[in-house]
């Protein structure tokens, strides 16, 4: 096959490209330039979009022996990922930009262009398995598994995706990079949001959205406990940074329970009030066999899984959890997995709209 390898400049995508070539594919490497101004993105090893990363990707392509180009995706990235990130926070939700980047950039804008130019598939260095059966599964390396941020992909997108790393641990990938003479073998992993240069998400949002003072209220009593500078700066489940002057009656810590953009209020309460056992979500992408299944669900990246009964319709998904979960934020993805010894299988995903508590407190 003629395949396009998206090369970030990191170790994973370099090894993925090399493996695709070894598998007999005709591989072309492409580095996506995502920053309108590269200096504003994270420098050094931490990001994926700096000039240094571009150079690292080029050198990896040289070593592997494949052609290499840089594609300017800055406008698309800005519109579909950065603006979306800001808008989601402004709407009181908690977005996952890596997931959005997969959905809108790597497996949409890039894939479309690649297909139009005669390529058959896009190769990435994601840690997930996608075998001959077409099922998306968790990586063998559960700590590095990225199936959660890939679960938004449709069947058509998955049909044109190749993830060569899913059967390897990260450790193995690094060792292989060194064996192959790839200089990125010991480059540190990237963790933070690549377009927030200093890691200060709240400051980034404030610079985009301005300050919008509002109230912090008690979820049980409705009492006004304090003020905030912008509801967008909060995430459901957050405890730190509330800066409340009125202590809780029972002296226990309080957590963000919900954010209401229309009234610009942040509602807080005790930990147990965070618990939800029914999660509703929209925009489902469903690969599962039936509309209602018993499976496991994951409610945020690297979050724990919980057994659930999931019912899917064309435009909604409702999950009834076997035990309550805390910190369920609108805007995050709910991903359904069927446990499997060959790697848990992704059944589908949807975007969380709300969580509620149906069963009584224990």
């Amino acid at each position, binding site marked *: 096959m003629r395949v396009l390898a998206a090369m970030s400049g990191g170790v994973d995508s370099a090894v993925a490209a090399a493996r695709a070539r070894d598998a007999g594919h005709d591989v072309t490497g492409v580095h996506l330039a995502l920053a309108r101004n590269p200096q504003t993105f994270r420098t050094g090893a931490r990001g994926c979009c700096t*000039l240094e990363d571009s150079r690292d990707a080029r050198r990896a392509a040289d070593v592997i022996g494949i*052609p*290499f*180009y840089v594609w300017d995706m800055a406008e698309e990235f800005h519109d579909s990922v950065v603006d979306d990130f800001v808008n989601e926070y402004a709407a009181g939700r908690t977005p996952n930009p890596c997931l959005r980047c997969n959905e809108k950039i790597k497996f949409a804008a890039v894939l479309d262009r690649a297909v*139009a130019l005669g390529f058959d598939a896009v190769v990435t260095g994601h840690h997930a398995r996608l075998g001959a059966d077409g099922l998306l599964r968790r990586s063998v390396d559960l700590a590095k598994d990225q199936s959660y941020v890939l679960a938004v992909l449709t069947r058509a997108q998955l049909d044109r995706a190749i993830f060569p790393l899913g059967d390897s641990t990260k450790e193995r990938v690094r060792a292989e990079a060194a064996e192959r003479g790839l200089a990125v073998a010991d480059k540190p992993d990237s963790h933070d949001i690549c377009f927030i240069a200093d890691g200060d998400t709240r400051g980034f949002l404030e610079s985009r959205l301005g300050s919008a003072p509002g109230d912090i209220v008690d979820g049980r009593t409705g009492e006004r406990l304090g003020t905030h500078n912008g509801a967008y700066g909060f995430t459901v489940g957050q405890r730190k940074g509330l800066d409340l002057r009125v202590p809780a009656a029972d002296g226990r810590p309080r957590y963000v329970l919900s954010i209401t953009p229309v009234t610009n209020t942040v509602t807080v309460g005790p930990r147990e009030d965070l618990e939800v056992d029914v999660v509703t979500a929209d925009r489902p992408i469903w690969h599962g066999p039936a509309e209602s299944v018993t499976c496991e669900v994951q409610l945020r990246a690297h979050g724990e899984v919980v057994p659930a009964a999931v019912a899917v319709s064309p435009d909604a998904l409702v999950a009834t959890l076997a035990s309550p979960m805390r910190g369920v934020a609108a805007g995050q993805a709910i991903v359904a997995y069927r446990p499997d010894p060959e790697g848990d299988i992704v059944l589908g995903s949807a975007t969380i709209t709300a969580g509620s508590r149906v069963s009584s407190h224990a």
Partner: protein
Amino acid sequence: MTGGRPKLEAMAYLDHAATTPMLPAALDAYVAAARELGNPSSLHAAGRGARRLVEESRERIAAALGARPSEVIFTGGGTEADNLAVKGIFWARRDADQRLRRVVASAVEHHAVLDAVDWLGRHEGADTALQPVDAAGRVDPEAFAELVRAHGAEIAVVSVQWANNEVGTVQPVAELAALAAAAGIPFHTDAVQAVGQVPVDFAASGAAALTLTGHKVGGPVGVGALLLGRDVTCTPLLHGGGQERDVRSGTLDTPGVVAFATAVEAAVAGRDEHVSRVAALRDDLVERVCAAIPDAIYNGDPADRLPGNAHFSFPGCEGDALLLLLDAQGIYCSTGSACSAGVAQPSHVLLAMGADDPRARSSLRFSLGHDSTKADVDALLAALPGAVERARRAGAWKTPR
């Protein structure tokens, strides 16, 4: 597709304006000189031997280009010579007269000039003005005369290229230089693309300074020269041993200089024959491209342009998509010259010529040189129609979902 070193037999190299293969004679001269020992600044026999090679080279270049040997300042290439001329003459003139703060360049200069001008504006308080061009990319002498009338007393230096590296347009250099000279303004011209392609005579041009570089004429990369009139003061960029009239310090690259001179001499001596052969090939290329892709736009001046240059916009295509598709078939060409982090920017040259952004982004340059053959043109024509069709389909990739 293969990465790394291309298979030479299988490729059609249509990117001579980026760099052209070394002439065998220049390569031989390089290797022979590289075997010799000696720093041209040393006073012993070995040094004198190297010095002699350098001075002979200086004389050969001067003779080929209508300059005096003492006017040849060797540099590390075209970029350095452009920077030396623009910044060095600006500094020297401004230091002599504080009113001389204006720098004028055409809007279609190579970045080696444009960015030097921009830097003077941002760091040295220069007033910078880009002279517009017409749809063919040419500076209007009338408009230039107007500028000199209005601001002549403030202009420290003017830089207008001899010929454009993207679209091949040749400027009315002698006319512009005469206007500048009449107002006492030093005129620099970047003749990197012109030497060996059109007649270049430094004395006859009336220019105060002229840039050329080795790797565009069949010499090595990393060696070039600024022809600098004896009476033109120029503050050095590089300070050190005082070589090259104290204007450009640094031990001279003897083998590079010798090979450079060999190439310049050969390119100038063989120019008529080169031009008639390459222009005929180019005309054939243009005719066939226009026949195969009827809506292709031939950019630049259809008649008065560099013999090896053909530059098109292919409506509905992204230039970098076309480049990828042609590269995969062993056909090497170029989009605009400008690159930031490898990302294709719409060409400032086409924008200055009045093209809109999509047209500027849809352009490709094919440039022929001394070793180009009909087979190269045939290979291009075999691949181009399919590539254009494919790139056009890919052109819809930006549609929002």
